[in-house]
């Protein structure tokens, strides 16, 4: 076998000059990124060593130390916890005789944890060598352990282990079989404006306005980027859209490209969805649009890259540190050029409007939020999965449809979102009330919300990029404080301090830090009885 450095040369020749994609391939081939490969990539691409080293030490799926032949990452989302993932994690470690995060001495396996893998509707889940295995049970963990001990390659593992269910429970406007495009160019922009299409990522910026701003911004190149890095705990709609509607997505990106005059587009997919690679590559290979090329760019375990400017940094092969804004990507995006960054659902909706017009879309939803929204529903309910509703649907309605009869709390918008108690279940999902990228996690009356607070605070500390002081330090202090409380060592002072930290975190550089204490504070306020017993 070629050395890692030689392999790096081959990869650069074959894959081009994107260091992150080359590093992901090196990691796959060698179970780590050796120092000589880092040096070779840096010199071959004429980049400072620290740029390449920085990537390896930033992205969660890259490692400088050799990992096991089987590298397992257990999904650590709150919904995984609720389904017993922590017990299964210990069971796996016990079966294999490994300590968390420490590679077994014979090099067989490394078992660690990662943030939400986007399988909340069929958890607990794990990634083995980057590929998702869902629906974990004690038996399945034992079977997987045996397969690893016998050194059975992944391709020979039972297919059912890798089966991912789509769980589309409610289809609406977007899930219709849209074909072709009646509207293009200016007519499409007008149709989108009339329809009232706003970005589906949660911020709700008018999509036509974004596209027009990009078109009108000066620049020698333009780019269209689709953000499929959904990392918000509890969201998995992009996974399902990429599985079922990737054609519509590419059509939406191409329609946008024609408007803004872009020749190149990127689909940034989170590394957790690597199992979709062949499916997406096949669809891309079958595209016959020679004027607009779409390239797949894989993430590598960094929630922050879902922030659009961090995502652009990542496509440029850098650590995913959010940029100073303004300027915004529409004027200064990828490589400093005007760039449209939109969510998967937004591009799909744009292409559906192009195919069917915006009238029906306009008629759905509320006065300020037109059309439909895909919700990823998970947690304590009998029918977790994807639900498409017109905007304005009440939380009560969602709970009824998903079979959550005994709900205590609903977390809307993931770890960065809002925690609702039963008195608020009449609230509505829409930009005017509960704006969300679509994560809906249900907690029933047997749950202790302190667990969720602990999980979310640890999540942000793990995912903070480390750029700014309040987020780098504040999320860690918040997590340490929640850990103390959970271990019964908390004090009233700790509870008070969480409120303070929330204020400090609001001074963070980007939305991750700004929203990091939000859910925890909600939970403290709405479920004080879940905390009071454990603090001194």
């Amino acid at each position: 076998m070629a050395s890692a450095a030689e392999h790096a040369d081959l990869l650069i020749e074959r894959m081009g000059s994107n260091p992150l994609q080359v590093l992901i391939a090196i990691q796959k081939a060698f179970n780590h990124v050796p120092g000589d490969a880092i040096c070779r990539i840096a010199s071959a691409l004429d980049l400072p060593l620290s740029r390449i080293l920085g990537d390896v030490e930033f992205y969660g799926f890259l490692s400088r130390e050799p990992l096991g032949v089987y590298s397992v990452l257990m999904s650590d989302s709150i919904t995984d916890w609720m389904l017993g993932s922590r017990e299964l994690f210990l069971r796996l470690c016990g079966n294999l005789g490994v300590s968390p995060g420490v590679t077994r001495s014979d090099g067989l396996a490394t078992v660690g944890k990662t943030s939400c893998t986007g399988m909340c509707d069929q958890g607990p889940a794990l990634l083995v060598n980057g590929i998702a295995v869902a629906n974990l049970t004690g038996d399945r963990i034992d079977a997987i352990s045996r397969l690893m001990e016998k050194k059975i390659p992944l391709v020979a593992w039972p297919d059912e282990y890798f089966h991912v269910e789509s769980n589309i429970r409610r289809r609406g406007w977007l899930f219709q079989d849209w074909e072709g495009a009646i509207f293009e160019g200016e007519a499409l922009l007008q149709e989108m404006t009339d329809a009232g299409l706003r970005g589906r990522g949660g911020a709700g910026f008018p999509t036509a306005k974004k596209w027009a701003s990009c078109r009108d911004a000066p620049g020698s190149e333009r780019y269209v980027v689709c953000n499929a890095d959904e990392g918000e705990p509890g969201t998995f709609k992009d996974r399902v859209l990429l599985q079922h509607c990737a054609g519509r997505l590419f059509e939406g990106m191409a329609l946008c490209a024609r408007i803004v005059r872009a020749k190149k587009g990127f689909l940034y997919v989170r590394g957790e969805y690597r199992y979709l690679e062949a499916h997406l590559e096949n669809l891309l290979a079958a595209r016959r649009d020679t004027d607009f090329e779409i390239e797949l760019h894989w993430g590598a375990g960094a929630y922050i890259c879902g922030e659009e400017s961090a995502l652009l940094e990542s496509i440029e092969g850098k650590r995913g540190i959010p940029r100073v804004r303004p300027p915004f990507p529409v004027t200064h995006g990828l490589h400093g050029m005007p760039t449209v960054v939109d969510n998967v659902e937004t591009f799909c909706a744009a292409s559906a409007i192009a195919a069917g017009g915006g009238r029906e879309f306009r008629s759905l939803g509320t006065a300020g939020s037109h059309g439909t929204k895909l919700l990823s529903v998970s947690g304590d309910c009998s029918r977790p999965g994807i639900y498409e509703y017109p905007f304005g649907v009440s939380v009560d309605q969602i709970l009824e449809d998903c079979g959550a009869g005994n709900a205590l709390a609903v977390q809307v918008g993931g770890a960065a979102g809002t925690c609702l108690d039963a008195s608020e279940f009449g609230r509505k999902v829409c930009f005017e009330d509960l704006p969300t990228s679509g994560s809906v996690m249900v907690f029933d009356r047997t749950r202790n919300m302190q667990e969720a607070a602990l999980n979310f605070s640890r999540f942000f500390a793990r995912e903070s990029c480390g750029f700014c002081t309040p987020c780098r330090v504040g999320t860690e202090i918040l997590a340490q404080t929640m850990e103390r409380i959970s271990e019964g060592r908390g004090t009233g002072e700790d509870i008070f301090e969480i409120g303070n930290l929330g204020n400090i975190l609001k001074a963070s550089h980007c939305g991750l830090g700004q929203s990091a204490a939000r859910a925890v504070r909600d939970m403290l306020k709405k479920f004080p009885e879940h905390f009071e017993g454990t603090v001194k």
Partner: protein
Amino acid sequence: MKAISLDGIMAPFAEGHTVMDCALAANIPIPHLCYLPRCVPHGSCRLCTVKIDGRFASACTQPAMEGQHVEIDTEELRQLRLSLLRMLFVEGNHYCPSCEKSGSCRLQKAAYDEGMLDLHYRPWYPKREMDASHPDILIDRDRCIFCELCVKASRDVDGKNIFGISGRGTDTRLVVNSKSGLLADTDISAQDRAVEVCPVGAILVKGLGFEIPIGKRLYD
């Protein structure tokens, strides 16, 4: 001429100016650590956080715009700055009494200015790698506050590109662009702007420690 309000004082600004530029020109102090005039600002320390029309923003990166009402010296912002300074102290190992930068340290000065009397948070006592390989220069990573001024100065002023930032979250660390990762294997010199620009005691010139007596140092 266009102007913004800084704690009620009208300060003029030109196109392209930030809130920090206006404040400096108007002699209105806004505490800061990672900002340095003539260096592209990025707003990582957040010490220069101000409130503009009800929202937090870092003064060094926020473009000045007509009609802005900027709050600087309010109780809320004083508390915030104090907390940020405490955070910088607890995440590293800042033992002022034995640090040779004491008296010339911008972090220490800012803490005095803001009246910081305790750490408030539990200190982390990190164990970070020290680099004493170079004959003239020492890196004590325990004191690094990730301001990136050395990164920028080495790249943009010295033209050597010796430093970089690696890692993530609390594992963020200052790294050196050499195969060994050691400063000895670079062409850095003690006269480099990258060395001089360090606001804390993370990059030190060897042999000069305690040369200037207490009481006569920069901020004494």
